[in-house]
C-alpha cells in the first residue's frame, strides 16, 4: 500500500433539499484496486458514482484524481481524464447496431478537433470493434440493433463502450442487475477478465454478495449516505451493521434484484 492513491474522495457531501444523499465520504483508491460497493437502495451508491463521474455536483468535499481535483468538471471531461463508467440501465444508442455503437465510442475516444469531421467508420476501427465484441462474447450480436438485443448483451456493450477511452478507473453501476442469475456470473467473468488485461482500477456497485465476495479485493458498504464499512471483503461483509442491513437482504436478492430496476437515481 505504498503507491500514491489514484482517486481520493474527501468529506464528500450531497444534499437534495432536505435529503442527505451522501455525507462525510472519505475513500482512497489505489491503482488496480477491485472495489465492491454495497448498500441498500437509496444508500447513496449511485449518487457516489454520479458525483465521481461529474454527473452530480457535490454539495461539499473534494474529489481528486491523480492528485488533481476534478470538482466542477462535466462527465465528458472526467471521461477524457480517464474515469469512465457503465450504467445500471445500460446507456446505448438504441437505433444503431451493436457494432456501430462501439465504433462510435472508439471514434469519439480517438478523434478530436477536425478529426471529428472524418467518417468514424474506418476498416481498422471496425476490425478492432469486432474483436472487442468477440472478447466480450457478443460478437454474434454485432449487427443487431442495440435496442433489440437482450439486457445482458446491452450490459456488456455498455461496458465495452465505457472501455473505449482506455480509462484508468472504471466505475460499474450494478453490472449484473436486470439479467438472469446464470448470466450474472458469465458477465462478471467476461468483464473482469477484460479489465484485468487492461490493468484498470475498478469500482463496482453490486447487490449480489457472492459476486462481491468473489471479485472484490475491498468492499465499501454504504448506508444512509455514509460509508459504514471499508475493508477486505471478509471484514466488511461481516461487519455487524452490514450483516444486519445489507447482506441480510442482499444474499437472497437474486430474484428480487432483477425486479428492482429502475432503482434509485
Amino acid at each position, binding site marked *: 500500500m505504498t503507491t500514491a492513491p489514484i482517486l481520493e474522495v474527501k468529506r464528500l457531501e450531497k444534499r437534495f433539499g432536505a435529503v442527505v444523499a451522501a455525507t462525510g465520504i472519505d475513500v482512497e483508491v489505489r491503482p488496480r484496486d477491485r472495489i465492491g460497493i454495497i448498500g441498500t437502495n437509496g444508500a447513496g451508491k449511485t449518487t457516489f458514482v454520479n458525483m465521481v463521474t461529474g454527473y452530480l455536483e457535490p454539495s461539499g468535499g473534494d474529489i481528486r484524481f491523480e492528485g488533481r481535483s476534478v470538482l466542477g468538471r462535466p462527465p465528458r471531461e472526467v471521461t477524457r481524464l480517464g474515469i469512465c463508467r457503465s450504467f445500471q440501465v445500460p446507456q446505448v444508442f438504441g437505433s444503431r447496431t451493436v457494432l456501430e455503437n462501439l465504433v*462510435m465510442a472508439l471514434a469519439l475516444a480517438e478523434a478530436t478537433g477536425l478529426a471529428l469531421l472524418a467518417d468514424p467508420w474506418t476498416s481498422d476501427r471496425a476490425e478492432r470493434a469486432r474483436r472487442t465484441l468477440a472478447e466480450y462474447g457478443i460478437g454474434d450480436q454485432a449487427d443487431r440493433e442495440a435496442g433489440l438485443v437482450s439486457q445482458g448483451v446491452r450490459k456488456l456493450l455498455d461496458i465495452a463502450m465505457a472501455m473505449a*477511452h482506455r480509462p484508468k478507473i472504471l466505475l460499474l453501476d450494478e453490472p449484473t442487475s436486470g439479467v438472469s442469475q446464470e448470466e450474472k456470473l458469465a458477465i462478471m467473468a467476461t468483464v473482469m477478465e477484460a479489465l484485468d488485461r487492461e490493468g484498470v482500477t475498478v469500482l463496482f456497485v453490486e447487490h449480489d454478495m457472492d459476486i462481491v465476495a468473489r471479485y472484490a479485493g475491498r468492499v465499501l458498504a454504504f448506508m444512509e449516505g455514509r460509508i459504514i464499512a471499508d475493508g477486505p471483503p471478509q471484514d466488511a461483509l461481516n461487519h455487524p451493521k452490514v450483516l444486519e442491513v445489507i447482506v441480510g437482504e442482499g444474499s437472497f436478492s437474486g430474484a428480487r434484484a432483477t425486479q428492482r430496476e429502475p432503482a434509485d437515481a
Partner: protein
Amino acid sequence: MSAAPSATLAAAPASARPTRSRSPVLPITIGAVLVIAAGFAVPAWLLTILLFALFRAMVVLGLIVLLRAGLVSFGQALYFAVGAYAVGFLSRAGVNDALVRVLAGALAAGALGLVLGFLLRRYRGIFFAMLSLAFSMILYGLLVKSESLGSTDGFAIHATTYAGYAPDRSSERFALLVLSSVVAWAGAIAVALYLRGTLGRLAEAVRDNEIRVEYLGASVAMAVHVKYVIAATLAGVGGALAAMVIGHVDPAMAYWTNSGEFVFVMILSGSGSVFAPFLGALVFELIHAVATHYSPGAWRIILGSALLAAIMFVPGGLWSLMPKARRS
C-alpha cells in the same frame, strides 16, 4: 427511457447507416447537372418553381441536420430573413456580386446562429421549437419597426452580377438557376460529408442518448451547437438565394408561418438523404402552383390536405418512397 421526440421522423433509412457508404459527390453532381440541364428545357414557369424549390431546399437541408438530432426549429425563418436582408444591405451598398451575396448571407446567418446557439443548445423538444420561434418573431418585430428598411413593404434588390458579368434579361433567370444549383451542390455535398463524419453521426447518438454521448467524452452541447450553426448558415444561404430570385426582401420572410412552411417541407421530404429536401421542396412548390392556379380562393385547403396526407400516410417523408430507400 430516452423519449426521443422525433424518433419516427428522424429514423434514418439505410443510406444513413455507416455501412460501406459510397462517396456522395458523384450522385450530387449528377443531380446538379440535371437541374441545370432542365433549365434549358423547361418552360419559364417551371424554371421559377425550380428556383423556389432550390432555395427552399437549402433551408430544409439545415432542418434535417437538426432533425437527425431530434430537434425541430420553428424559427428557421429568422436565419432565412437574415440571409435575405444581408443581400438587401449589400444591394443598397451597390454590391451585387453573386458569390459575395451568398457568402454574406451565410456568414450573417451563421454568426447569429453561433451567438444564439449558446442559448438554444440547452433546449430540447417543444421548448427548442418555441424559443427559436420567439427569436424569429423578435426579428420580425424589429423589421416591421424599421421605417428606413421599408417596414412591411421591404425593399427591392438589384439584379445579381457574376464576377462582373451582368446577364441580360433573357438569361437572368437561367443564370440564377446555375447559381442556385452550384450553391445547392456545394451545400448538399458539405452536408452529406458532415453527416458521414463522427460529429454528424453524433446527431443520432444525441437523439438516442445524450448521457451516453457525454460519457463517451463528447460534448452534447457542442454537437448541438455545431448543428444549429450549420442549419442557420444553410437557412442564410437559402435566404440570400431567395432575395436574388425574388428581387425583394420584406419582414414576412421572418414570420412564423414561413418557418412553418419550412417544417412542412421537411416533413414532406423526410430526412433519409440529402436529396430528400430537394424532392420535397419541388413537390411542395408544384402542389402550391397547382393549388393556387385551380382554386385561387381556397388553395390552403389543398396545401393543408397534402400535408395531412403526408403525415398520415407517408410518415417517413417522400424520400422513403423512393425505390432505393425502401430496402430497409
